[in-house]
């Protein structure tokens, strides 16, 4: 009897919710259960309408950018060891040679004179060399501070070049503020793209990017490439003087990133094998769930357990609980049958 009622409810729900049929005419097909199933059908309709179907574009866009940024950081972290060798070489020998030259020549005045140099100036190489030398003498904290200073310096250099109407190859980092066709604004710097510009397809408004290109006479930077910036700590190096790989030594790994997403159970990973279950769940003939044991053997639940059923969840295994095919292992809490309708179901599942 109850099985027939369950079947009737399922058919009515399908008719109304999936096929859009009239509720009353669907209920009329099962006159013997209509009065009992009518409120349940209404509950099903309410349940369907409880959550908006449409996820806003803003939510989609925001979290897509967040995810792609995280992926970029993971890629960068994975490639960091390979880049580090060349990085160390540059950090050790280039600044050392420059520092030695400055020391021997007594040319600290030259360094001071170079501080206002812009890309394309004769002294710009001295300026950048001195910056590199400062990195060599800095610990990690100071390095991070200097990198931030020099990122701002690169953008200021670009703004000055644009203000002077000068042409030079530049590279700078910043956040995409606006993007309208081929007109971009990156950290306050107007950027123009062309059909030849290499643009990372995952870039969104708000994404940190590295722009490479040339200042042009229309007051914008004509970009040759716009790629994702993988870290706040990246040292930007103008292409005018530095052809080495982008600085990556202090790129945080994925765990260190100041990620706004919540991490409620950082150690929890779904278990592909499902072996990690510390709770076993059995299902009785009438479809009710019965928690029969836990790994620690502490408790044994059945459907009569009416203590806050939704949050009696059995400990989630540290390694997750999904199966080979990724399907979930449901949390074996009581489903509150004792409260909700013990008279409603006692049918076998298998008939």
């Amino acid at each position, binding site marked *: 009897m109850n099985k027939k009622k*369950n079947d009737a*409810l*399922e058919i009515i*729900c399908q008719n109304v919710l999936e096929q859009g049929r009239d509720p009353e005419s669907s209920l009329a097909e099962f006159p013997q259960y209509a009065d009992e199933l009518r409120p*349940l059908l*209404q*509950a*099903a309709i*309410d*349940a*369907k309408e*409880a*959550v908006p*179907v449409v*996820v806003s574009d803003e939510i*989609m866009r925001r*979290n*897509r950018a967040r*995810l*792609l940024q995280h992926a970029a950081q*993971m890629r960068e972290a994975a490639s960091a060891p390979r880049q580090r060798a060349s990085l160390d070489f540059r950090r050790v020998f280039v600044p050392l040679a420059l520092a030695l030259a400055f020391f021997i020549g007594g040319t600290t005045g030259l360094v001071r004179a170079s501080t206002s140099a812009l890309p394309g100036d004769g002294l710009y190489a001295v300026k950048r060399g001195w910056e590199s030398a400062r990195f060599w003498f800095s610990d990690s904290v100071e390095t991070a501070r200097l990198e931030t200073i020099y990122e701002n310096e690169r953008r200021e250099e670009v703004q000055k070049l644009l203000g002077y109407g000068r042409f030079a190859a530049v590279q700078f980092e910043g956040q995409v503020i606006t993007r309208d066709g081929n007109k971009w604004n990156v950290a306050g710097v107007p950027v123009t793209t062309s059909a030849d510009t290499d643009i990372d*397809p*995952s870039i969104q408004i708000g994404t940190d990017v590295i722009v490479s290109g040339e200042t042009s006479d229309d007051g914008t930077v004509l970009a040759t490439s716009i790629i994702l910036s993988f870290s706040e700590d990246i040292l930007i190096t103008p292409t005018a003087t530095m052809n080495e790989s982008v600085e990556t030594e202090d790129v945080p790994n994925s765990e260190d990133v100041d*990620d706004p*997403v919540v*991490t409620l159970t950082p150690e*929890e*990973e*779904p278990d592909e094998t499902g072996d990690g279950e510390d709770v076993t769940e059995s*299902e009785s003939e009438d*479809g*009710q*769930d019965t928690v029969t044991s836990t790994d620690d053997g502490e408790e044994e639940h059945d459907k009569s357990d009416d203590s806050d*059923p*939704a*949050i*009696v*969840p059995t400990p*989630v295994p540290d390694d*997750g*609980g*999904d199966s080979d*095919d*990724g*399907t*979930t*292992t*449901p949390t074996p*809490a*009581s*489903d*509150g049958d004792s*409260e*909700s*309708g013990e008279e409603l*179901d006692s*049918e*076998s*599942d298998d*008939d």
Partner: protein
Amino acid sequence: MYELNRSFDGHGQKMAALSEAQQYNELDGLRTLDPQVIAAVYDRCFPDVYRFVLYRLNDEGLAEDIASDVFVRLLEACKKKRGPKKNIKAWLLSTASHIVTDHLRRHYRRPMTQLPETLADNTEALQIEIERSDQARFTREALQQLTSDQQTVLTLRFGQGYSLEETAAFMKKKANAIKALQFRALAALRRYVGEVENE
């Protein structure tokens, strides 16, 4: 074995199921952190994961954070070669389910979201919208009173639009057990909605 590859796009439209070859290509792309593959998986699965969590927790901000976290975990699991072996969607929902359960365990009962008491404009359309909004709120609050399995079955059946067989596969139960569970869940929901409305 039923697969949970049929999805809804961001506007609730059903999307075609992926072929097995496409799934394996996606898994390869995830392991290599291919941004195009990541974006494709995200676009296909995020709405379902978000709605799943929102349905369970009735908190939009938290649902967004958890859904986002689920995808971060997917990337990290794939990188460690511990990710899904074939069914990405089921892995994501399973992970979301674990996080939700863990969250509920930590926070016991969440405070209910409050809507503004009154709005100045009392046009008929607005009244209807408020009533609809109230009903949705009552239902979401009542959903929080259900057991985890009851919540899951209603979330999958009515929140996600999964079929009986898909839901049974996901919850590792028989179809008849899902019918019975669904019956009890709707009866309990009906009762709790009445209680919430009378509060």
